[in-house]
């Protein structure tokens, strides 16, 4: 019977794995946001009743988006190996995981963003049109600004989802908290590491979720009634 891993070692493990997770998730979230928001905007612009309705473009875009969203992440992780090698110069490690994470998250963000933008009331959008605003101006000042609180929440949801996906990073040597729990905890029967990781993941996701909720509320001008 092997003695339990000392707590100081557990902490070292957790710190290292947290760094890897935050690195993978952080970078891929930024990429997914930068590329996914335009996808969502484009989806909404070309939708029926959008600012630039175009059924053909919308249908193709929708198809690709839904295809991307329906792909199991672990499949994407291995299927994209050659693409990953092309972009980051290698196919293993934390950096390599960023590519499939971002690719998987772009359609996810795109669809979330479109749903949110479609909630902006048509009267408000038309009022902006009658002021002579350009499409770009309406996208920026009306669609995105009016739904900013919801968009910030959506990014929060994306981060949490990506933390979940990143648990599979171990398959290509990406490390992170999920990998720690599976490889060091579960497969080596190390309950202390397994449960510490689980508890730490719960704390981490709660804190992240709370942070995004706060940020969303801070950006919202609607609830400041009766000042």
């Amino acid at each position, binding site marked *: 019977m092997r003695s339990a891993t000392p707590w100081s070692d557990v902490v070292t493990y957790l710190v290292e794995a947290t760094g890897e997770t935050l690195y993978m998730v952080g970078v891929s979230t930024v990429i997914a946001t930068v590329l996914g928001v335009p996808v969502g905007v484009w989806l909404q612009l070309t939708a029926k009743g959008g600012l630039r309705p175009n059924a053909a473009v919308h249908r193709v875009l929708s198809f690709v988006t839904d295809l991307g969203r329906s792909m199991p992440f672990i499949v994407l992780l291995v299927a994209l190996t050659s693409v990953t090698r092309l972009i980051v110069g290698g196919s293993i490690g934390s950096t390599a995981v960023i590519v499939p994470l971002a690719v998987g998250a772009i359609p996810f963000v795109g669809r979330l963003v479109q749903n949110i933008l479609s909630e902006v009331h048509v009267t*408000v959008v038309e*009022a*902006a049109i009658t002021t002579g*605003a*350009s499409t770009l101006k309406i996208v920026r000042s009306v669609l995105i600004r009016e739904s900013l609180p919801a968009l910030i929440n959506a990014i929060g949801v994306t981060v949490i989802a990506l933390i979940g996906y990143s648990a599979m990073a171990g398959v290509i040597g990406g490390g992170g908290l999920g990998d720690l729990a599976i490889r060091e905890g579960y497969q080596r029967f190390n309950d202390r590491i397994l449960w510490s990781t689980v508890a730490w993941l719960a704390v981490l996701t709660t804190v992240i979720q709370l942070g995004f909720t706060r940020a969303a509320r801070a950006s919202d001008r609607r609830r400041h009634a009766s*000042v």
Partner: protein
Amino acid sequence: MITVENLTKSFQGVNALNGVTLDVQAGTVLGVVGPSGAGKSTLARCVALLERPDSGAIRVDGTDITSLDGSALRAARRQIGVVPQGDSLLRQRTAAGNIALPLESAGVPGPQRRSRVGELLDLVGLTDKAGAYPDQLSGGQRQRIAVARALAANPSVLLADEPTSALDPETTGSVLTVLDRARAELGVTVLVVTHDMGVVRKICDDVAVLEQGRVVEHGKVLDLVGDAGSRTSSALLPAVDLNPVNESSYDRVADVVLVGFAAVGALLPEVANRFGVELNIVGGGLTRLGETPVARFRLGLNGERSDSALEWISEAGGAVQRSLKGPQGVAA
């Protein structure tokens, strides 16, 4: 200033507009009224350049604006300030920020933008609400901000689509006052689309009645009220026949419409004196169209010269609408 010529528009085979022609003189207020489904909203959306008509023209200062695209279309939109139906303010922007939106689109630089926004807040009487968000404003205040926004880029035409439909009567007054002030102080030409004849009563110079996509009545409000058969007169003037008149006790019974202070105040006593007739008001009443007092009275006359008296009223500018009793041909 703005003319609508033979406008037609149909949706899936249903004709919403069947050749609508309107003319609004510079600096006047035209009310477009009519029942639900008459085509009011479609007309408003066409004038707001949100909908393209199937045929016909909308001219602002003589230029047709219905077939523009791109930046020319956006420039034309700035010529027409629109107060849309319903809540249309950006909820994430302050009152001042909302008013600034058209100025941003027009590329007006910051300092000028701020001073213009200040003028408009002053015009609509909400200077103290500059930093308030729409959720902190009442419905009437939000609508006044929407009017200010519509006026921001100095349009020559202001279009208001049902500006008072969601408001209580008291608040309605404050919004109409602002529209009226826009005309008076900025000289803007106003087109109000509404189902509420109260709007016509309070601020409109002209009225157009729309029914089934056609203009069935169009003219000056004060002219139309003198026309007994007009929809405008029956909608705006006091009813005369609430109490049945004992007609047998009069030689003549007739309805007259009197417009203006002088006519309402002095005409009837004078006619009684001049013709030596007994003259009683047996029905109707007094109302006000804008600033002008307008009366519709049912008169009962006794005396030999009753017909001459009615004729004289008619010549003096009172519209004698019908002679309910007495020889035909007396009525104007």
